[in-house]
């Protein structure tokens, strides 16, 4: 198997080097037959090629068995017209890497953080409020006047359905439970659509329990009782795409775990 390695900015090259050391040993022990090709992205690419992400790297990535992407300092990149392309966004949208799979498990022996947390947040990554990825043409925010800014949020049945399905599939391998995180009490149409699709998917998984939480309540539960956000045992959460967690962003989380 051949992996494309993109070390990126900041600590990216260091953490990627450590991960590659681990993979090389895993290869020796388990016979994975791994090969690695490296390309520059981020500031290294900006200096050499005038852009943080060349289109050719994105195209090349499609031909690999896997991609390993380090961190990016994209808040410090120049404007897109000056070559500062958001690498994560480009990978998510152009390669349709729509599922951000974010496990969170506490290690009691470290003696810090919430004990007993073991959940996976499945976050949709290709639509929602992100202005750089929710429009076919143009940009999903605008300023009618210097003191007024408007943001557009896109939720589709297609993207809601597929992130929900991934969450239920994962839940089935874990504890058989999904929690949809949303704000449908305020966002009747967008989060309503999201919930409608989640419930349709749930019908295909009678062995998985679905519940749902308002996004603001969900954050309180994470602090108060990380083991079980609403009922007895832990989970998988699934969320629609929201750049920030607090209200105004719908999300669903599915929490499965054995």
């Amino acid at each position, binding site marked *: 198997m051949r992996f494309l390695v993109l070390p990126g900015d900041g600590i990216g090259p260091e953490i990627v080097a450590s991960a590659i050391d681990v993979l090389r040993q895993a290869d020796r022990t388990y016979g994975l037959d791994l090969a690695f090709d490296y390309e520059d992205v981020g500031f290294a690419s900006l200096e050499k090629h005038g852009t943080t992400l060349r289109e050719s790297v994105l195209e090349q990535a499609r031909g690999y068995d896997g991609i390993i992407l380090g961190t990016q300092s994209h808040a410090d990149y120049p404007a897109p017209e000056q070559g500062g392309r958001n690498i994560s966004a480009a990978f998510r949208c152009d390669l349709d890497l729509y599922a951000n799979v974010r496990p969170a498990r506490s290690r009691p022996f470290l003696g810090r953080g919430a004990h007993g947390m073991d959940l996976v947040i499945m976050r949709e*990554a290709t639509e929602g409020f992100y202005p750089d990825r929710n429009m076919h043409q143009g940009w999903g925010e605008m300023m009618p006047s210097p003191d007024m800014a408007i943001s557009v949020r896109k939720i589709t049945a297609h993207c809601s359905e597929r992130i929900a399905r991934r969450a239920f599939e994962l839940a089935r391998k874990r504890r058989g439970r999904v929690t949809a995180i949303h704000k449908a009490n305020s966002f009747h149409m967008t989060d309503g659509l999201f919930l409608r699709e989640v419930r349709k998917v749930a019908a295909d998984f009678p062995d998985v329990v679905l519940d749902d939480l308002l996004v603001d309540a969900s954050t309180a539960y994470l602090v108060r009782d990380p083991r079980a956000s609403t009922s007895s045992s832990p989970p998988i959460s699934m969320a629609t795409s929201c750049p920030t967690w607090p209200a105004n962003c719908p999300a669903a989380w599915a929490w499965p775990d054995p």
Partner: protein
Amino acid sequence: MAGDTLCCAQAQHGSAPDIQGQDKANPTSMILSVAMLLNWLGEHRGQPSCPRAGAAIDAAVDAVLADPATRTADLGGALGCRAFGAAAAKRLER
């Protein structure tokens, strides 16, 4: 981040430019992400050795974190980024 036909391992944190190049970063997230990539390959490409290696990496990282002597500075330990990776790799040896 994963799609239907491709998967990309990516640490879920930022680039921490304040400690860049100092061998201080904790690579746990990146290492566990490549383990997730192996698990994804096991599921989507039917490579049976991949999920075995993925599970072994998960266990190796937990074992390294469990020992106070092999933690990185953010967790009160003395290991650098490279040495932490090497300690996890060592646990994968047969």
